[in-house]
């Protein structure tokens, strides 16, 4: 076993070309570059500001999808259920007007058991719908949405008695308002509770991350230098990564020293960044444990894992639970950044968007790693920022860009699934040799 990221190790013998493997990623890079060319209204500054705030909002959710893929459950659209758990926790906090930094910690704490329970039931369902987990996860999201609406629209007020005068309850005393203001953290709410703890200029963040990646590459190289499994391909990747991070270091130092316009990009929340990095580290570390090895065994072949004495059902449930809990926390981070709880809409899209992000990064239903998640989140959100601009400059109508967005989201998912089926069909075809 070697030290490359664990997703890499899952890669089975390559039998298709590099382009076919990365077609989705390439389309998105081309789209973003094209956007820059045709639209003159977008400054680098605006783009990076938008991108960084979107990245910090969404990356955690996308990262929560990795473990189910490794465990063979495919793309877990069911993180929607986790997001609901997060929103329930936030609603409870808001109702009792608990907030501030300790209130934020309590929100995470409350979301944990709720999400774990939801994850358990989802996991049980996935075990019953073996082989159809992705469809099941999609449907479970819709179904759970129904229960969620029942809870927030009806149960609150009719079954659970609440005062009609409460600012988050609808004036007639039944149900929660469509949008609930989360109240600034200084005033005892949850809005920006994580973001406001510490913020640093964007370029400093880039510098720190680039230096960290560079160090990681150096450590990896010195550790693996003499291992026979550290072959040419991996050497190449290490080299490319190092060069890229060096370039980033150079750019950021230049920007900081010359105080260029890039320094005017909005500041980034440090704590969220730390959370995202911790989740990356967690994803890596868990795959180096017995449990992680079980995830991979089950993901590769349920039958063989079963025969080897691994409790397949339990392992899959644990994977689902981890994913759901992470999604709940991801949604809490998302909402504190938004500042308002869009009670009936905030969670509905995150399944699709997170899955699309992961796929854009080059992941498939059977292979996903951190690189896919991070790269995918960046690219997918670039597309989101650029598409109205493209619509505006090409057709004179920003709305057309909106259609483009939708088209791209579902197109990507469809393309990735289609490619997956096409590839596995090709493999399964009987030949005379």
């Amino acid at each position, binding site marked *: *076993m*070697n030290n490359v990221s664990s997703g890499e*190790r899952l890669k*089975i013998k390559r039998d298709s070309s590099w382009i076919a493997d990365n077609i989705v990623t390439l389309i998105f890079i081309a789209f973003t570059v094209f956007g820059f060319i045709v639209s003159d209204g977008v400054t680098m500054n605006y783009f990076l500001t938008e991108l960084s705030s979107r990245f910090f909002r969404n990356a955690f959710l996308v990262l929560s999808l990795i473990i189910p893929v490794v465990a063979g459950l495919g793309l877990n659209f069911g993180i929607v259920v986790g997001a609901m758990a997060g929103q329930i926790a936030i609603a409870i906090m808001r109702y009792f007007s608990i907030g501030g930094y300790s209130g934020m910690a309590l929100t995470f704490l409350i979301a944990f058991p709720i999400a774990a329970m939801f994850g358990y039931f989802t996991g049980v369902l996935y075990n019953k719908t073996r082989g159809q987990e992705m469809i099941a996860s999609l449907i479970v999201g819709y179904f759970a949405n129904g229960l969620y609406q029942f809870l927030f629209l009806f149960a609150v007020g009719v079954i659970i008695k609440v005062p009609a005068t409460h600012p988050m309850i609808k004036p007639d005393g039944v149900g929660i308002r469509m949008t609930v203001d989360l109240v600034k953290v200084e005033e005892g709410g949850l809005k920006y509770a994580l973001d406001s703890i510490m913020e640093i200029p964007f370029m400093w963040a880039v510098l720190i991350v680039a230096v960290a990646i560079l160090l990681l590459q150096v450590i990896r190289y010195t550790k693996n230098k003499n291992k026979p499994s550290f072959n040419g391909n991996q050497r190449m990747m290490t080299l490319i990564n190092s060069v890229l991070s060096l370039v980033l270091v150079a750019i950021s130092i230049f920007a900081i020293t010359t105080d260029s316009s890039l320094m005017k990009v909005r500041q980034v929340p440090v704590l969220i960044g730390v959370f995202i990095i911790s989740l990356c580290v967690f994803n890596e570390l868990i795959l180096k444990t*017995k449990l992680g090895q079980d995830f991979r065994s089950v993901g590769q072949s349920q039958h*063989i894992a079963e025969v*080897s004495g691994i409790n397949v059902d339990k392992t899959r449930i644990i994977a689902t639970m981890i994913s759901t809990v992470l999604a709940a926390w991801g949604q809490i981070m998302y909402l504190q950044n938004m500042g308002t709880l869009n009670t009936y809409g905030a969670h509905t899209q995150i399944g699709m968007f997170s899955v699309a992000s992961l796929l854009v990064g080059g992941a498939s239903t059977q292979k996903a790693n951190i690189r896919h998640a991070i790269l995918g989140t960046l690219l997918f959100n670039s597309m989101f920022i650029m598409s109205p601009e493209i619509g505006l400059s090409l057709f004179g109508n920003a709305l057309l860009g909106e259609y483009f967005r939708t088209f791209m989201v579902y197109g990507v998912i469809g393309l990735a699934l289609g490619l997956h089926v096409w590839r596995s069909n090709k493999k399964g075809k009987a*030949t005379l040799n």
Partner: protein
Amino acid sequence: MSDNLLSLKNVSKEYSGNRVLKDINIELKKGEILALIGENGAGKSTLMNILFGMPVIHSTGGYEGKIEIDGKEVNIKSPHDAMEHGIGMVHQEFMLIPGFSITENIKLNREITKPNVVSKVLGKRLESLDVKNMNDDARKALDVLEMDIDEYLPVAGLPVGHMQFIEIAREIDKKGIKILVFDEPTAVLAEAEAKNLLDAIRKLAKKGIGIIFISHRLDEIIDVADKVTVMRDGEHVATKDVKDTNKFEIAQLMVGRKISIERTDSDNKNVSDETILDIKDLKVSMPGERVKGINLEIKKGEIVGIGGLAGQGKLGVANGLMGIYPATGEVVFNGKKLQLNNPMASIESGLAFVSEDRKGVGLLLDESIEGNIVFSAMQVRNDFLNMVGPFRFKDSKKIRKHAKEMIKDLDIRCTSPLQNAGRLSGGNQQKVCVARALTLNPTLLLVSEPTRGIDIGAKKLVLDLLKKLNKDYGMTIVMTSSELAELRSISDRIVIVCEGKVEGVLPPDAPDADFGLMMSGSRHNAEGSEA
């Protein structure tokens, strides 16, 4: 008690009322190699599943009898229990994960772990993997087998011979392994690899491990085993010391006579000299039933039986001819060259096929009997259709008339021609399949496993039907079957296929031992080449 490492006492197993194992007794001593032999369906796999605690056994009501290890009765409920008791198994289909390295496969679910901060709080499952020690252990196991291969390589892409050894390495890496089961380990190996494997087995036995060796290759058994147990139809036929027996006796015991063969009409048959089907070097890539170059000549008006053990390629022949699986070779049918890989062309040229996969390929289970009967004819020959302009409509009257005739002729027991085919009993379903094949007016009928999964009474009816078709209409029939007895009861000649090639051709009244030897590929008969 005794010095037996393992003893099975009166082990029986029922699958929903169907007794597949009856009072099996097996004893295995330390360092002994016991060979287990039997035809398909003899119960070998079921027995090993019991020994290995496979879920399929316990989800169908468990087994009867006793299993003792080292003289103590044990209750094996899961593969994990089996492992705890020191039972290891080298599976026929490899239980290896292709994307994992050799080490990871050898250490599958037995990974060495070391505690870390988190695991101290949240339990053992979160301990980190100790990759270095895992590699060392894997290296040791590979060294025992004298495998000169790097343990960190991925399994995908290794030659099959190596994969087999990795499976064995995994078993011997287990602590306290006492009994090792090899399920047809040489079936997928080339000769040199097989020899290495047998050497390895001997070496393991010398270390005091008891070995159960399942194989149908008699030569290997004679070569490597100390004792041989023969099973037939779920029954324990005999256990012999290998030095007291020979392969002829084993072959005879294996085949046996199940039902008396009644043949009445071997005399007045009009088999012409005309060759109707000439197969040269047919290769078919049917998964699990690969055909690797068959030469066969079939005369007009005869019934040819194709026999052999499962997985040897006998089913591939008919499927290849019908274009269901990719095939190459030269086939001349009825004087014309048959276009392979094209089911339409095969049917149009006058071949008809009753598939072994009755419920999958053979029938549309939710369609009516009459629909099933005329289905192929409608598709291929445009029979039973009314053409109205560009549209084609079913000719219900004609269909009904034909279906009624067929139901009467073949004696299909049903309430009406509109009954769903899925509701019929196995034997009647088979007759519907035959009826459909006959509706195509074939010159040659290919029938695969016609009696699989149907009861004894119905079996006879189906066989009689085939015989009648042959006698009354002079139809040439090629019947493929795993059941030697039924091949012998109606065929004029029996072709035995072994390892994808024709092993030999026997008359139906040849001695049991000849069939047994040929099926296990132990007699390389000269007549095979000219068959």
